[in-house]
């Protein structure tokens, strides 16, 4: 099966929808119509392709890993989203949304960010297109990712601390939505993952599917075959949705890897927050729980609705890894391949490393969604 479009009301099976304050509904209709129109417009597609090629640096390479593969006994290839401009896959989605916002006549972008990668990407696109940019970031995350805070400010964005709740990504989303409710007429909410109300989960996946489409072509041309397993980390799930969409109609096993402290899909309890019905970490009364992970980018109690759907129908499998396993994988890739990964994709590598027995003899495609520069300071504190 392929990863198909959601229903006209934005549902992937039992997951999705538009659970937002009434004030925002007309903006969501407008956005959906604008996206449908743009996505079918060759001029828009050419404009985006041009930016992806000459600004973001696409296509990103596919890298084979001799030393890592030898050490694990599993043939691992990396899709190098870490080499994109701004250092992660986030730029793919942001360039698409910023172009779309401009086409809709919006002059401001508001975004949430966890690790800061989406915030940096949004601030970058805003600078490129001469738009105003406001980024909400949890207070806790601002402290652990201060370099990215500085980057965003350097790029001309206003970074505002989300000081409510757990003061991480979940609360940054709350604040960004509250802000958007007040300024919806001239501002586009540049959501960073395949979550939120329809059309975001679908639109963001479409902007990220370039990862999967490229990787599929590269696997065939460089390796002469498709991978047996496609692995990616999952917070909200945008890099996973992007790479999965290139392989959903193949025999490849799709594996999403969640942090043990933010395992919405693995726990499999449905809920409604931030605009959609999906699996959600919550207590016995329906209060949303705070995720806890070493990686600010995956510190999120929910997950995009299409991932819940892929799990429910058995098309993708979801696994969890611990912070300790992630720290080990972070060092493993650095040591064996000379590539320092972001902590987020290090989760996917941690799972490959743990499952190496099961994976022996297979070809595993790992989406290396971002580079580790932002995490070096934090890891210095942990590893000493």
């Amino acid at each position, binding site marked *: 099966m392929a990863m198909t479009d959601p229903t006209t009301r934005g549902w992937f099976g039992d997951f999705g929808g538009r659970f937002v304050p009434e004030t925002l509904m007309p903006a969501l209709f407008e956005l959906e119509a604008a996206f449908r129109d743009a996505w079918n417009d060759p001029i828009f597609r050419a404009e985006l392709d041009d930016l992806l090629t000459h600004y973001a640096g696409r296509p990103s390479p596919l890298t084979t890993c001799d030393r890592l593969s030898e050490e694990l006994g599993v043939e691992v290839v990396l899709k190098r989203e870490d080499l994109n401009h701004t250092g992660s896959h986030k730029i793919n989605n942001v360039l698409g949304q910023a172009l779309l916002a401009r086409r809709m006549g919006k002059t401001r972008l508001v975004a949430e960010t966890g690790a800061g990668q989406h915030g940096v990407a949004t601030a970058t696109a805003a600078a490129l297109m001469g738009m105003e940019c406001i980024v909400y970031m949890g207070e806790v995350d601002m402290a652990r990712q201060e370099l990215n805070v500085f980057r965003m400010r350097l790029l001309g964005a206003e970074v505002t601390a989300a000081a409510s709740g757990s003061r991480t990504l979940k609360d940054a989303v709350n604040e960004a939505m*509250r802000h958007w*409710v007040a300024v919806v007429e001239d501002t586009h909410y540049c959501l960073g993952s395949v979550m939120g109300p329809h059309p975001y989960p679908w639109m963001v996946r479409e902007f990220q599917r370039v990862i999967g489409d490229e990787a599929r072509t590269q696997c065939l041309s460089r390796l002469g075959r498709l991978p047996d397993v496609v692995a990616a980390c999952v917070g909200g799930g945008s890099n996973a949705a992007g790479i999965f969409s290139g392989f959903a109609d193949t025999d490849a096993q799709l594996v999403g890897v969640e942090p043990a402290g933010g395992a919405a899909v693995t726990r499999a309890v449905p809920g409604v927050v931030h605009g959609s019905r999906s699996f959600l970490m*919550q207590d016995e009364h*329906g209060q949303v729980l705070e995720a806890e992970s070493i990686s600010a980018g995956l510190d999120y109690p929910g997950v995009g609705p299409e991932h819940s759907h892929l799990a429910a129908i058995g098309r993708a499998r979801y696994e969890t890894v611990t912070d300790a396993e992630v720290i080990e994988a972070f060092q493993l890739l650095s040591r064996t391949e000379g590539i320092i990964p972001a902590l987020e994709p290090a989760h996917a590598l941690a799972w490959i490393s743990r499952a190496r027995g099961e994976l022996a003899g297979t070809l595993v495609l790992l989406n290396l969604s971002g580079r580790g520069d932002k995490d070096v300071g934090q890891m210095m504190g942990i590893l000493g």
Partner: protein
Amino acid sequence: MIGAFETALRSARSADRKVVVPYITGGLGDDWLDAVRAAVDAGADAVEIGIPFSDPVMDGPTIQAASDLALRAGTTPVSVFAQLRHVDVGVPLAVMTYYNIAHHMGLERFASTAVDSGVAGAILPDVPLEESEPWCDVADRVGVETIMLAAPTADDDRLARIVARARGFVYAVGLLGVTGVRDHLAASSLEIAGRLKAITDKPVLVGVGVSTPLQAAEVSTVADGVVVGSAVVQRLLDGEGPTGVGEFIGAVRAALDA
């Protein structure tokens, strides 16, 4: 069939009385039920009880803070309903919460618990028209009046469809933004109230950004009345207790009656 909530508001209107519906966060302090009673004694026509949720995206800092405090004190949906069961204030009550609370409890159980607790209406601000069917089917059957929000961003066609689905009253969102105290009444409050009054004879109450007795009176020149939330809750956060709530609602009542 017209429910108890709407009936009460319609009879107020027949008596040329503009209505005031205060919002009080359930579980905010040990004496929150006394605050409900004080508001009714001071002239509230109905009361909206907030069931606190961890992620209230439609609420500004005041109600967020109140929700946090109530949750930290151990408030749960079940505890709010259980406490409401022992109250008979003589005016209809509505609960206001977010969809996940009802979704997690089970829509059927949430609705029937509401009815058993003497609650007539429900407001779920993150359930727009397009997602309202599963909840409204249950609510209609069990007898809970679902109060729908109508915002300034909606076109005329959408407003008409919202009004058709609304029970109890139509909650006109006074401005673009979340709940919270504002210095001035937004022009959009009068405008949305006027647009709604032109297409419905259901009661139209304006909430979000109605903060003072004067603002309440001003917007009620067009609307049938007001919902006041943050201004009430702020008094509780400031430690003024049920007395402070009673004084404030009394002042709103006086301004509406003047």
